[in-house]
């Protein structure tokens, strides 16, 4: 959109027209929670996936695999997180003037440097910053911004501004490297566009145990059905293929996830994973009020941590947190959500630091757009443009990257991007996944020296 107007959403409804609408993310148990642990599934399944994921070693000791590869964990924040109240330019008078009562009190910000500080609800990120494990990329965005959640997220996930592309930037990487689907793992029922290629789509796993229902016979026969037939129509073949991926996931990751059911790498409180979905709903529906321990993101990252620590060799993981579309009464909502982000990512990095398989893991945190500099009349903020992104991890070179956008030279009331978002992707593809980014991004973009 290039006009002179932008959406100012409803005053009385914290708008949330995006993905985080799912009302019950805990739910993966279905009508029957099968409990049989897979035994007899060796039939029909080669060692391929197991080898691919675990480097061919036994899964039992949690220390298999070769050397620690670099891994990317993509954290998508749905709704458009307000970056200006996340990494706060608290010494800039234009900030205080434009934000009014929504401006964070300078005495409360967690000071970083260069006049910036973190939201008070992010002590974990402050700790990572002090340990030089947190990179903050300023002014991230793209030309001709779009204020639609849907289209902006589409641009972010496809990695192609302007012309819509059905594949994602990591999906094209999966295609281009002729990878097994198990090389990238999405948490949840469906696979985001970012991880969907034309030929290869990431494997999706539930947020919780990966236990197959039924008897050994039922499971063996499921595998027989999943073989499919050579002359299957395209969709039947694809359905059979996803069934086989499920079995491969069970065989390669199931034992880890079984043990994970009793382990707690992120040291979550007992009710965290159980109540997470419900609490997020409460927070969404109420405009805040969820408990800090009810952390859906932590539940997802806990699964990821277990997989990485056990030596699963997937290179990419995708997790998500929604609810950031704060058009009204922003502070309590954003505070709760940033607290969840802070707690989950910090615990995740803590769990991986110094470990054989986890120390080269990079967490990339992004959202579809920033929010307008001026607060609106409902103590909220409307859709904007440039934003901050985070990269965190034991191997990340902490510090600021990119030029902070001016708070006085605005476009349509919004800060203007200084760092093309594809530079982030080029950095991840080049620096983390060790590949030439160019073919997957349809062009060359400067890499940031943050890994």
């Amino acid at each position: 959109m290039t006009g002179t107007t932008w959406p100012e959403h409803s005053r009385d409804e914290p708008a949330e027209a995006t993905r985080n609408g799912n009302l019950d993310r805990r739910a993966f148990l279905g009508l029957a929670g099968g409990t049989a642990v897979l035994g007899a599934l060796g039939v029909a399944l080669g060692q391929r996936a197991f080898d691919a994921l675990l480097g061919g070693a036994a899964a039992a000791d949690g220390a298999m695999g070769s050397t620690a590869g670099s891994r990317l964990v993509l954290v998508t924040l749905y709704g458009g997180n307000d970056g200006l109240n996340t990494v706060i330019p608290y010494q800039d008078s234009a900030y205080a003037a434009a934000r009014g009562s929504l401006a964070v009190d300078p005495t409360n910000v967690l000071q970083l440097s260069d006049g910036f500080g973190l939201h008070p609800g992010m002590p974990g990120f402050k700790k990572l910053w002090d340990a030089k494990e947190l990179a903050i990329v300023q002014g991230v965005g793209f030309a001709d911004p779009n204020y639609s959640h849907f289209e902006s997220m589409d641009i972010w996930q496809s990695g192609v501004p302007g012309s819509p592309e059905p594949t994602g930037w990591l999906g094209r990487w999966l295609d281009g490297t002729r990878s097994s689907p198990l090389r990238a793992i999405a948490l949840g029922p469906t696979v985001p566009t970012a991880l969907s290629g034309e030929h290869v789509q990431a494997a999706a796993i539930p947020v919780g145990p990966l236990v197959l229902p039924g008897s050994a016979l039922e499971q063996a026969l499921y595998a027989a059905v999943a073989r499919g037939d050579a002359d299957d129509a395209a969709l039947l073949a694809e359905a059979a293929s996803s069934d086989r991926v499920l079995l491969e996931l069970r065989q390669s990751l199931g034992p880890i996830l079984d043990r994970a059911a009793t382990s707690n790498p992120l040291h979550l409180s007992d009710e965290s994973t159980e109540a997470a979905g419900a609490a997020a709903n409460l927070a969404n529906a109420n405009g805040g009020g969820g408990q800090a321990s009810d952390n859906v993101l932590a539940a997802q990252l806990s699964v990821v941590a277990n997989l990485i620590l056990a030596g699963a060799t997937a290179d990419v993981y995708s997790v998500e947190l929604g609810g950031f579309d704060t058009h009204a009464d922003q502070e309590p909502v954003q505070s709760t959500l940033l607290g969840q982000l802070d707690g989950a990512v910090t615990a995740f990095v803590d769990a991986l630091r110094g470990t054989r398989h986890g120390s080269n893991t990079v967490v990339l945190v992004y959202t579809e757009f920033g929010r307008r500099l001026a607060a609106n009349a409902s103590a909220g903020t409307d859709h904007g443009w440039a934003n901050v992104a985070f990269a965190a991890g034991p191997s990340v070179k902490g510090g600021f990257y990119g030029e902070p956008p001016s708070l006085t030279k605005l476009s349509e009331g919004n800060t203007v991007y200084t760092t093309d978002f594809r530079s982030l992707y080029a950095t991840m593809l080049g620096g983390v996944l060790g590949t030439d980014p160019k073919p997957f991004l349809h062009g060359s973009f400067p890499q940031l020296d943050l890994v």
Partner: protein
Amino acid sequence: MAVAVQGTSTATNLVAHLFRRAGFGAVPDQLAAASTAGYDATVSSLVSGLTAPDPGADAVPTPVFSIPVPAAQRRAMDLAARHALSAQLHHEFVELTTWWLGRMMATSNPLKEKLTFLLHGQFPTGISKVRYPAYMYGQNQLFRAQGSGDFDTLTQAVAADPAMLLWLDANSNKESDPNENFARELMERFTMGIGNYTQDDVRAAAYCFTGWRVDPKTGTFSIASRQHSTTPQTFLGVNGVNSGQQVIDLATHSHASSLFIPSRLWSFLAYPVMPSDPVVADLAPAYSADRNIGNLLTAIFQHPQFTESGSLQGLVKQPTEYVVGSLRALGVTPTDLAQTPAALVQALSGMGQVPFDPPSVGGWPQNSYWLSASAALARWKFAHGLTRKGDISLVVDASPTDRVDAAAALLAIPRWGPATSGALQRAANDPPTLVTLALVSPEFVAN
């Protein structure tokens, strides 16, 4: 009993296909009757049901919904009261969803419930922002009552209905600061498709919708004259446009819409196509003449390509279709369902689709989107549980050698591929497992 399914007649298979797409699948008796009546007569019967009473679905009790609480009042609540309200709304949401699923299972006029479901995908609106189940219920009833008539009339009604007004921010659209949210989605998603209008058209349309208001407590629609722009706009090349009703009228009567709407319904019912597809060109002239959805549905079901192989294997069942189709086939009733409503919502959530909760204003993607390993596991768990509770006597009562065919009859599957057939045969002495495998087979998931 011997059930000769392998090699059932083409005519029977086509009627079964029609029932899958125009409804939620046929049970054996229904299929037998429809096969006797013939394909064309079945189309007529399904389409005439669009405007007929639906005693089956209407027997499902409608939940009672609480009166929406305005935001100001909500903000004044303490935390405990907010949580109580939230819990109440969530409870009502589960009841609402269960009610609709129950209607789909019990309907006497399957196309009517199916169209209601497809229109939810065409005008995706979500509880996460609308917040009050009462308003989602209202929109759902609107789809049911007006969905098969004139598309302009339907779009006008949807646009002025509380759920859509809340979902796309009508209350913040004012002359001094127009909000383009609804204007853009109206053209992009609901009526015309992307690429058929300019940003100037979006801006012009947004001005015409300024001042559209909904009372958050009563849901009453009004146009606030002080915030409504009456400045004449140029919209889609037409000068002097100054009302939202005119904008909708022009959008739904545009040439782009005469291709877009047939392409959307064809994509929902046969296989995904773009508006430029030749099959759409076949449907567009008649549709543009009357904009009547019921007539368009007839034209789709009667189009030669609807019954060709591209269509027969052209869609993955959406999770709602999968769940309802399975429950119907195994004789589960809405009353049974009401015992464990949350479990069904959980099963759907695991498959990635909860009705009334689309992932975005774009609605749900199709086909490959549903084929993830995570969703496959959710289907399997659902099927495993269902075959322990549902009626699989058709298979149990068959002799072991006939059970594979009996499972095909139970699910109205024209034929099993060799892989599935072989596996089912090996489960012949374990009917619940046999039917579970049938329910998770590619043949049932993608058809």
